């Protein structure tokens, strides 16, 4: 896959805005790379809050007699943990952080096409995070409605945080979506408009395909969440009845009437299911590239991988109601949504096969990023297969709303994408900081995180088979269900969870320690082909590339090409500049 005619550049380059003061250089920066780091640090900071909340939850579940937190606090913690992890951490990290850092570099652009808008996007996101965080300190505390925020309970008296917590949550989501839309338009337009010469769509690395498709999904999906948040705010503040039927609150008849709680669920999951893929698709893309680089082999079935990403993205808009099989919606929807949901398993399975077929006959370097990729395949496969239980409507009936669901989604969209994020940080850390991360700490971090997470979530599925419902503050005295062995299992899970939590502290330490004390990274330490490693400076400076933008001659997967001396050919190297291996007259052609 190389060489084709490279078009002449049609437009003059426009000079970037260069910062004039410390403030515009270091704080209100318009450089996508710095914005990416701002996004990343903010997301990790609020994500750390969510991680700590989970420790309290796990201790409460394992040792209910201690009552470390009250019922209300427990429900507030599960809500904030879920919402922060899904929206404010994962979405912001993949699109805001990785999207901003990687898109311009990997497509060969100097920056995003709208750098100013890009900056505003981050500051809007920060405000959303702060509004959410403030809700911890308001009267009544943050909302405890569950991250799905289902009405009517989200805005009624039996739920903690219904005074102000729920309002701040909804407002924060709206702000987040406004900020995301600014960033998201930027990512899409930069990919479509600002690719360098020769960078055809089918030469883009899968990382960019994943981020691109996920961003398109997000631009379509988030508006559904936006309207549902606005409507619920109206129901709460103006006593409208979008989602509120006639009902009674602790014996008192309320004035609501005529609304539909199920309408909210449709809107929420119309956003919520694509959201799963907004997180998964960038992870798919990144992991494809990491596997290819560290196995020194082209990704297997590249075109299939691209179409699978696009196909999964499109299908993800017609599967949402599989979250609602037992919601009381028309039961005949079950036939349709079970079918679409199981269809989506086919392209997803193909991706898994192709990752492993990339390893086949590869030259596998068991670097830390590769370890995280292997961990990703294990957890993603596990979570994907349990998705076949929950997607198949009748199998979902006994398992829905139990710990099986909790285990499933943590495995598939918690642990799996997080392993990719961590692997990607180890992979790109030398590019971003110019230093290598400490290897020993990194391997310790990997093994505890991967094995520990597996030990948390694999057995957890079986609590669901017993019938333990999720979102229970305590199990209570139920003879048939909660045998002492189930309580023991919960203790075991909690210990594993705390160990995994501890390993993350080692990771955070490593990130800061290595920035100062790490070994200086050689240029392109993993010998990758993609353009982000081809900048004159490492780390790249504002404007990314030197005087001339790179010109792209080949796809991003020319690893171990027969005839080339090195086992990789960067995308901006034309055939005639490739050093040939002994015995070859040109690439792929042996001397006769």
């Amino acid at each position, binding site marked *: 896959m190389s060489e084709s005619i490279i078009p002449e550049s049609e437009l003059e380059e426009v000079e970037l805005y260069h910062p004039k003061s410390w403030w515009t250089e270091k704080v209100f920066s318009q450089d996508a790379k710095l914005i990416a780091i701002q996004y990343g640090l903010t997301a990790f900071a609020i994500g750390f809050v969510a991680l700590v909340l989970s420790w309290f939850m796990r201790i409460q579940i394992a040792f209910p007699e201690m009552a470390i937190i009250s019922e209300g606090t427990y429900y507030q913690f599960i809500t904030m943990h879920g919402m922060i992890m899904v929206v404010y951490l994962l979405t912001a990290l993949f699109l805001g952080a990785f999207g901003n850092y990687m898109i311009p570099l990997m497509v060969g652009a100097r920056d995003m096409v709208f750098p100013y808008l890009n900056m505003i996007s981050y500051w809007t996101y920060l405000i959303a995070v702060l509004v959410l965080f403030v809700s911890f300190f308001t009267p009544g505390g943050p909302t405890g409605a569950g991250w799905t925020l289902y009405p009517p309970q989200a805005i009624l008296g039996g739920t903690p945080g219904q005074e102000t917590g729920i309002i701040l949550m909804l407002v924060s989501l709206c702000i987040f979506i406004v900020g995301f839309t600014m960033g998201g338009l930027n990512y899409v337009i930069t990919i479509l408009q600002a690719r360098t010469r020769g960078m055809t769509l089918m030469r883009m690395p899968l990382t960019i395909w994943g981020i691109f498709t996920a961003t398109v999904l997000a631009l379509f999906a988030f508006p559904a969440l936006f309207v549902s948040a606005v409507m619920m705010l109206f129901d709460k503040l103006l006593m409208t009845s979008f989602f509120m039927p006639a009902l009674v609150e602790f014996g008192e008849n309320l004035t609501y009437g005529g609304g539909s709680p199920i309408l909210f669920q449709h809107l929420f999951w119309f956003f919520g299911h694509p959201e799963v893929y907004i997180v998964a698709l960038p992870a798919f893309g990144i992991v494809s590239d990491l596997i290819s680089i560290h196995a020194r082999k082209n990704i297997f079935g590249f075109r299939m991988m691209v179409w699978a990403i696009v196909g999964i993205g499109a299908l993800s808009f017609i599967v949402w109601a599989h979250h609602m099989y037992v919601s009381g919606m028309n039961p005949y929807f079950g036939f349709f949504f079970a079918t679409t949901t199981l269809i989506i398993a086919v392209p997803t399975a193909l991706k898994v096969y192709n990752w492993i077929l990339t390893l086949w006959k*590869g030259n596998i370097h068991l670097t830390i990023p590769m370890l995280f990729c292997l961990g990703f395949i294990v957890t993603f*496969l596990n979570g994907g297969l349990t998705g076949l239980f929950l997607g198949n409507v009748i199998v979902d009936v006994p398992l829905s709303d139990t710990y099986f669901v909790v285990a499933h989604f943590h495995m598939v969209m918690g642990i799996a994408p997080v392993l990719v994020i961590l692997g990607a940080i180890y992979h790109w850390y030398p590019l971003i900081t110019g230093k290598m991360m400490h290897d020993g700490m990194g391997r310790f971090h990997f093994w505890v995180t991967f094995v520990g997470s597996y030990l948390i979530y694999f057995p957890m599925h079986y609590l669901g088979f017993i019938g333990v419902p999720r979102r229970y503050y305590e199990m209570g005295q139920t003879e048939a269900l909660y045998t002492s062995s189930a309580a023991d299992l919960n203790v075991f899970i909690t210990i594993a969870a705390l160990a995994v939590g501890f390993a993350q502290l080692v990771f955070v330490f490593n990130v800061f320690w290595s920035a100062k004390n790490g070994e200086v990274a050689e240029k392109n330490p993993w010998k990758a082909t993609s353009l982000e490693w081809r900048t004159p400076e490492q780390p790249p400076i504002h404007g990314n590339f030197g005087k001339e933008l790179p010109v792209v001659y080949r796809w991003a997967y020319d690893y171990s090409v027969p005839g080339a001396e090195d086992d990789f050919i960067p995308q901006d190297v034309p055939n005639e500049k490739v050093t040939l291996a002994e015995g070859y007259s040109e690439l792929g052609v042996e001397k006769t």
Partner: protein
Amino acid sequence: MVPFILLVIIIGSVLFHLYTPWYSTPIASNWSSIDSTIELTFAMTGAVYVLVLGFMTYCVIKFKSTKKRRADYEPESKKAEVILTVLTTIGVAGLLAPGLIVWDDYVSPPEEAMPIEAMGQQWYWNFRLPGEDGILGTTDARNISADNPFGMNENDPNGKDDILIEGDTLHLEHDKPVKFLLRSIDVLHNFYVPQFRAKMDLVPGMVTFYWIRPTVTGNYEILCAELCGVGHHAMRGEVQVDEASDYQEWLSDQLTFEAIQEQAMLERDNKLALNKSN
């Protein structure tokens, strides 16, 4: 070390599944077909899990980097991709088809199923049986008051003989199919009895349903399975599956809506009389 840990994970997961002490409770309803679909899904997904991860582990052992090794260059293989797509599609269809057949059964209650209303509110259960006419009277959340906790429509003749159970224990007759009509007067709840394998949300403003036929006598706990506020985890109830004679005995002790109304009226008259005599 890497392949070793991968193998431990694969083998350990299979052994865990085979020997786990934590698995489904003994079934007490007609939905053994649901359990069968779960077993089928386990068998198929388990096989895929072992095969795919086994192959990955093999690759990690066989193609681990050495100084001399160089990877193959093979961009794609149409044949491999077509074969894998077809096999996966067949496998997925093999899971879906039986699943949909059982779902069709699940959403089609038999004609003879007795309608029983389970009514949820924060954070307890009430029940209503249709009485001799076999029809449940209409209700409306707006009718709810201290005197009329079920929100019964007093003008509906079908409601007069409805049996109202203000308590958290429901009795069912062994082997008689029932269609649960689910109603909430405040927030979402979910009527879930693990041993019956079935569940469905209660949604204020509408009536949802599912049906079962209890096949084993005994006591079973009702668990609320949809987050409904701070008392969610404590919202329990009980279903007692009785032999016909025990069931009839229990039934004869329950009061109809009409009887409850009359009682209330009597009490009110008595109070009035008492007040007057004072």
